[in-house]
């Protein structure tokens, strides 16, 4: 009896395997439904927002969601075509590779015409083929890896041109900027870089290290996990003749804590953070430097956001606002061109053509996407023109003043 069971089971399994490998095509890329169907614009259109709502990186996702909502309410107040969101929890660095699940869910949801997010560069790596098969070009506010838009020697381009855009300058641009500032303006020759073992941090660290070493400076590196708050031993290990410590981290509170512990230890090195630590309400170490968006802090939109969020500008989420605006504008334009009806492909092409003025983008520079390579690190999908980070110095009263 058991033998019969065994035979039947094996046969059933083999059947399904054979069926799988021979039927339903073999060389087609992942086929997805609702890819090219036409969607009526009507009164409301849907944008998918993918961000880490839960998981260890939830601290980064919350500002993105807050700014996305702010963008939605700002847009809906002044436009006839309203936007609605479908959220996707991508749980960056969390449980499952939910980013892929989110990508498939969004791709199959016929209502979604455009996508804001996802947040992590490695998430884009996994989902690029899914988005391409669904004819969606995600517009991300925080994916900064250079290889997503520009092929460099040794690292091929990871997305197809026209299928990915980002409203944030990439690691190459930021790292280059920072290294130039450190070397030319601050004239520091002995630098230590401490990264927090996340992909964002390691990308920046590598770029800055390469640039500084090429300019002749001495660079040492160290790492500390984002979940380990005791910086004392890392601080002790800093070589005596280090003049500047660069911390390309994602959480401003940790940067502030590092600064406090460094000074408490009696060390006098200058601290420099990346755009992830750009937060005037938290990171207040006087004399430190930060790279961040050249945001116009007097802009009324920024002020009303701060009022609604306890004075916290949550600058990490600012590019997500821009990304939602880009998507909304693209859908609006595509709907007008299609006379009330549009497809994902049309929206995708419209995204490439969107132009936002400085006051609309809130980033301190107008937004316009590149069609080809530009500069050392930019490629199609990056923002062109004046898009760059500024370097800020933190004053004694906590204010940020632009110095580079």
């Amino acid at each position, binding site marked *: 009896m058991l033998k019969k069971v065994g035979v039947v089971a094996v046969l059933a399994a083999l059947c399904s395997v054979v069926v799988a490998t021979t039927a339903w095509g073999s060389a087609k890329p992942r086929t997805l439904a609702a890819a090219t169907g036409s969607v009526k614009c009507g009164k409301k259109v849907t944008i998918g927002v993918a961000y880490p709502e839960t998981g260890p990186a939830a601290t980064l996702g919350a500002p993105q969601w807050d700014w996305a909502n702010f963008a939605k309410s700002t847009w809906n107040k002044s436009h006839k075509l309203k936007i609605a969101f479908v959220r996707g929890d991508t749980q960056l660095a969390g449980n499952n590779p939910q980013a892929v699940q989110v990508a498939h869910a969004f791709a199959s949801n016929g209502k979604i015409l455009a996508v804001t997010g996802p947040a992590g560069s490695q998430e884009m790596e996994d989902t690029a083929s899914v988005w391409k098969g669904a004819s969606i070009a995600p517009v991300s506010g925080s994916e900064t890896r250079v290889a997503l838009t520009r092929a460099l020697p040794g690292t091929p381009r990871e997305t197809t041109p026209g299928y990915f855009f980002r409203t944030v300058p990439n690691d190459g641009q930021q790292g280059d900027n920072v290294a130039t500032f450190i070397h030319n303006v601050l004239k520091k020759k002995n630098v230590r870089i401490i990264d927090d073992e996340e992909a964002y941090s390691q990308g920046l660290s590598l770029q800055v290290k390469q640039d500084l070493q090429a300019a002749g400076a001495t660079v040492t590196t160290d790492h500390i*996990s984002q979940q380990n708050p005791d910086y*004392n*031993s890392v601080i002790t*290990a800093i070589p005596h003749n280090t003049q500047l410590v660069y911390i390309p981290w994602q959480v401003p509170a*940790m940067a502030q*804590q590092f600064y*406090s512990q460094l000074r408490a230890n009696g060390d006098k090195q200058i601290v420099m953070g990346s755009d992830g630590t750009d937060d005037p309400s938290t990171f207040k170490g006087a004399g430190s430097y930060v790279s961040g968006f050249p945001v116009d802090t007097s802009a009324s939109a920024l002020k009303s956001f701060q009022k609604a969020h306890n004075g916290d500008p949550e600058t990490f989420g600012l590019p997500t606002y821009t990304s939602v605006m880009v998507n909304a504008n693209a859908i609006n334009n595509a709907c007008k061109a299609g006379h009330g009806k549009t497809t994902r492909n049309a929206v995708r092409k419209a995204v490439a053509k969107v132009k936002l003025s400085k006051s609309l983008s809130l980033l301190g520079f107008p937004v316009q996407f590149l069609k080809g390579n530009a500069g050392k690190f930019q490629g199609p999908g990056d923002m062109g023109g004046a898009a760059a980070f500024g370097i800020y110095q933190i004053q004694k009263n906590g204010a940020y003043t632009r110095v580079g």
Partner: protein
Amino acid sequence: MHHLVLFNIIDQIRSLGWPGAFSLLRNGLVLGSLYALIALGYTMVYGILKLLNFAHGDIYMVGAFIGYGVLVAFGGALSPTIPIVPLIILMFAVSMAGSGFLGVAIERVAYRPLRTAPRIAPLISALGVAFFLESSVQLLTNSAHYLYNGYQLGGKNGNFGPLLNPVFTVDGIPVTVVQTLVILTAVALMGVLVYLVYRTKFGKAMRAVAFDREAAAMMGIDTDRIISMTFFIGSVLAGAAGVMYGLYLGDTYFFLGFLFGLKAFTAAVVGGIGSIPGAMLGGILIGLAESFSTGYVGGQWSELVVFGLLIGFLIVRPTGLLGSHAIQKV
């Protein structure tokens, strides 16, 4: 490749010299005191219920938040409305009480009904409680990070306050008030615990219940009450550790209990789980190991070194440093 790494380490040791070594020793002792306090909670609960309470790290996290709440209720670190010493005492008191009651509540709701269930049931229940606590705090705080700014407590205009004054200096390396506070408070609390467990009647009851619960019940000891008190004491210690964490390391958020709890749990195991002096010893050892390996080997290998040491250690000496062999009955 290996000799390169070894040369780097020796180089690093030489370049940091004696001041560096003392600094790492100091860091390790302070960190180790925190680990020891949390490890005590793990080991006491294991001794009495044979339960690995995975939710303990989250009680520590809640303790840190309660301390932060008290701090903010009295104006925050930069402009406190009452003098610092009463403020700190109040933070400790409220946080310890709050964590203690939280621990007791968790025991009543999640562990008591599972007293007689197979051992994996309370383990899974503990995991469930841990998830629940982390996600609840995440919901309540909107995943934000909060800073105690303990170094600026009592300082003028955002400068460093008295907590950072050096108590004594060795070779140019200061040992600050806050670090001494952490070590002394930890030692004091551990002293009180040792007195409680080994010199009082209540402690005798606790040891009896840990040894053989049925026999203790037959001797007239109210095991339920003793178990609740054990959880209370363990959680009180975790709450105190939470406030110390806030004052010394500062960055409070919903996920902070996870890695800390794991390392403290390691400490409890290395010292011999179920043994109170073992937990203290284990905590200090893990703190020192982490500090020295971060300083000499570098951040990327330090965790691996610590974990590797532990695996090796357990394989060589399976019951930990001061643990006792469990007698297996047929």
